[in-house]
């Protein structure tokens, strides 16, 4: 960590305001093939909640990783309390009073809360460090309104509680500036409000918060100022009071954004998916689905709303044959497919766009053509008996590449070289190519930028027009509202309400997600 006086040689050096806690100036960071941060300048004041807004891929997380010492910038300066600093590692950042609550928690699942908090803490306590730190944890919890049991094991905690552990970890190390990366992505609206309370208390203590988000509503609610990033650049910094949703959205995307895609009214046309009293367990043997019943008609999109961890993953896996159910039935197009294999369910006419495209949807090292036949390779024309037909695969691949506008050098390219959006298009092309009547799409646009997401949405809507039934699972309430005809809210393994999209709004759905049944 070097400390230097502001250089005199630079002309027009902006004077550092006394209340300015942090200044990132002209930060540039590149990775192989991509410029993540292209000269970003951002200032944060003490006692404020500063939102960092941008869509996926805008560079927000990279910028904060630079601030937190995970990445080293190619160029640019970091000024903290009027002095320039070098942050070479999270250790430096923590020493400087910068803490981070990451989007994917970095907690040791097997250990207790106290052990996680105590890890890496300097100070006395060679023996039983976890025990020694408990009083401090409780004290912090009281002061900020974070209730957490120091002796609980991480795997026993809900995402909201785990997030509190992360916050305690940072606060106990004296963080004066806390970075929160998409913190509400794992919270219900109620839990999010609890978090905002905590942030307000931090403001009162004179601490600063950088709140990374792509959700405009939250930014409006909690932030004092907002910096908008787009494609690696800082586009504007404004007080939140002086702007509105539409202007922010325009800054984020660079053009006017339609908040609702046009969806034609369509009369549903016969039941395609029928789920009756479905019961299933999660990976840890705990009940995940407690008697789910729902139905999706042909020509309709049913959105499953709810924060992750309420059974969505298990629901998708049971319906698509990747997880056994312990009770109830699943019927597709009139056929009982309960507990059939994934292959059998697929043959029954169900397409599955999986939640984790890299881990489940493709084999990254194999070619585009091979991935395109990942589900149907057994059938002609791709296979003749035990031998595969490469020529047919190649033709099919070329057709898919052009039809779905997949950007790739060719059908033989290893799939992992494609961008996220193109991989998703590949998966969609593969799943939709057989004109399936039933589509189960889980988080189909997560991690994609707006234009790719729009393409995916258009494809789904098109299939809906053509009479397919779509079960859409997403954490993005905007996406659910935009695409679904009806919305079912999943909470703790049960459907707590099904509403017509036309007759509801975010508030109502948020209430359902919290458990207030209608």
């Amino acid at each position, binding site marked *: 960590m070097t400390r230097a006086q502001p250089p005199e040689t630079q002309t027009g050096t902006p004077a550092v305001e006394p209340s300015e806690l942090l200044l990132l100036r002209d930060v540039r960071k*590149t990775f*192989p093939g991509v410029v993540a941060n292209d000269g970003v300048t951002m200032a944060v004041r003490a006692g404020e909640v500063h939102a960092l807004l941008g869509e996926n891929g805008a560079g927000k997380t990279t910028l904060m990783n630079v601030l937190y010492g995970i990445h080293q910038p190619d160029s640019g300066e970091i000024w903290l309390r009027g002095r320039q600093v070098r942050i070479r590692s999270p250790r430096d950042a923590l020493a400087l009073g910068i803490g981070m609550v990451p989007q994917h928690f970095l907690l040791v699942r097997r250990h207790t809360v106290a052990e996680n908090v105590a890890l890496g803490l300097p100070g006395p306590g060679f023996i039983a460090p976890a025990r020694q730190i408990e009083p401090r944890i409780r004290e912090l919890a009281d002061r900020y309104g974070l209730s957490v049991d120091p002796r609980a094991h991480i795997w026993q905690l809900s995402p909201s509680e785990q997030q509190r552990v992360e916050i305690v970890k940072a606060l106990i190390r004296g963080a004066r500036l806390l970075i929160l990366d998409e913190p509400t992505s794992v919270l219900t609206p109620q839990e999010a409000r609890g978090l905002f309370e905590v942030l307000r208390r931090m403001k009162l203590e004179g601490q600063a918060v950088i709140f990374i988000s792509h959700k405009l509503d939250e930014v409006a609610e909690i932030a004092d100022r907002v910096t908008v990033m787009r494609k690696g650049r800082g586009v504007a910094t404004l007080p939140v009071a002086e702007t509105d949703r539409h202007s922010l959205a325009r800054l984020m995307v660079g053009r006017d954004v339609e908040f609702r895609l046009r969806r034609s009214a369509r009369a549903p046309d016969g039941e395609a998916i029928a789920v009756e009293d479905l019961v299933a367990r999660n990976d840890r043997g705990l009940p995940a689905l407690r008697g789910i019943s729902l139905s999706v008609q042909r020509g309709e999109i049913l959105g499953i709303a709810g924060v992750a961890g309420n059974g969505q993953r298990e629901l998708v896996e049971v319906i698509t044959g*990747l997880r056994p159910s312990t009770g109830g039935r699943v019927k597709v197009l009139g056929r009982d497919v309960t507990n059939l294999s994934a*292959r059998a369910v697929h043959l029954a006419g169900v397409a599955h766009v*999986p939640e984790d495209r890299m881990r*489940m949807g493709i084999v990254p090292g194999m070619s585009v053509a*091979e991935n395109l036949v*990942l*589900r149907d390779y057994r059938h002609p024309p791709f296979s003749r008996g035990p*031998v595969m037909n490469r020529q047919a695969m190649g033709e099919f691949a070329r057709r898919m590449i052009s039809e779905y506008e997949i950007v790739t050098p060719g059908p033989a390219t290893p799939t992992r070289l494609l961008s996220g959006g193109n991989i998703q298009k590949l998966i969609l092309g593969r799943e939709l190519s057989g004109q399936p009547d039933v589509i189960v799409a889980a988080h189909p646009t997560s991690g994609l930028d707006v234009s790719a997401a729009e393409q995916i949405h258009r494809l789904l809507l098109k299939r809906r027009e053509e009479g397919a039934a779509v079960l859409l699972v997403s954490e993005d309430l905007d996406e659910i509202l935009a695409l679904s005809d009806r919305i079912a809210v999943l909470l703790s393994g049960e459907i707590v309400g099904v509403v017509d999209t036309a007759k509801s709004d975010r508030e109502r759905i948020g209430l359902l997600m919290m458990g207030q049944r209608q």
Partner: protein
Amino acid sequence: MKRLGPFRVERVLVPSGAWVLTVSLGAVAAALVAAGMIFWAFGINPLRAYAMIFAGTLADRRAAPEILRQATPLLLGGLGLVLAFRAQFWNIGAEGQLLAGAVAATGVALFTPIPAPWLLPAMFVAGFLGGALWGMLPTLLRLKLEVNEVVSTLMMNYVALFSVEWLIHGPWKGKTAFGFAYTDTFPEAARLALIPGTRVHWPTLVLGIALAGALAFFLGRARLGFEIRVLGENPVAARYAGIDPVRTILLAMVFSAGAAGLAGVGEVAGIHHKLLAPGQVSLGYGYAAIIVAWLARGSPLAAIITALFLGLIYSSGDVMKVTLQMPFRVTDVFNGLILFFLIGSERLLNYRLRWAPGGRPVETADA
């Protein structure tokens, strides 16, 4: 992106074939240099040593075929491991599977009344099955109980080793054995033909080459080969694709262990014509096959070349034993060094050197 003198170091997602080859050769070269240093510590001039090795193996018309002879079991075992590794099944038990195949072949040769010309094919079939069976237990343990296959296959090696010892000292002890332990000699019909003037039992070698071609075709074009590749690369996607991991890995291991068994048949039917001490039936071929497969980077056809290379190392071991008075174990030193440097150099595959003398670093952004 950094600079290294006149070169630019860049990260690459998919290394080119030429680069993979360069790095592999570099690793082998580094291993040879390291081995040279060991020679030097032993009081031998490394250059003189390598010269002698060359003279005694490649340059010697009588000794050169030994390379082929040593390469034969290495090729068969290595092909089996190529397949197992592609399925992400870490079969370290090729040594034991080889011995199992040898035992099976011996049993057929000595104790069944099968007449020529059916005897040799029967021996090969038996050897394949013997090896396959020997690999089954660890496979099932992994598939059903998630027992780590590295330790279990390795343990099976030791069990096989002592089983052979037991057989040749006990129930199968030959009538003519006095000081040493071995079985009776095989009948004429159970002996493989040799290339005249050499010890190369060419039917096994031809089998190995044919198998290499078949495996290459299988991996590239067969449905099961596709399934094995998907399963090995991404088990989650395999489940999604409806691939049954149990069936797929079982089949892959049947072949993998069976191939090692075939190697064992070759050794007893082609070289020794009896079952003898395990350390003589297999000179560590099962372990060296790991290197054959690894160096071939998953390609069955490349395994032919890497098997020849390892065969060269083994022949060099013979030369070193005779001319340099080094124990034959020195081949393990070479093998270990090569594997070690291969592993150590894999990180290099993710980088690429670009010739860019002088000038400022150029933009890399092409997003």
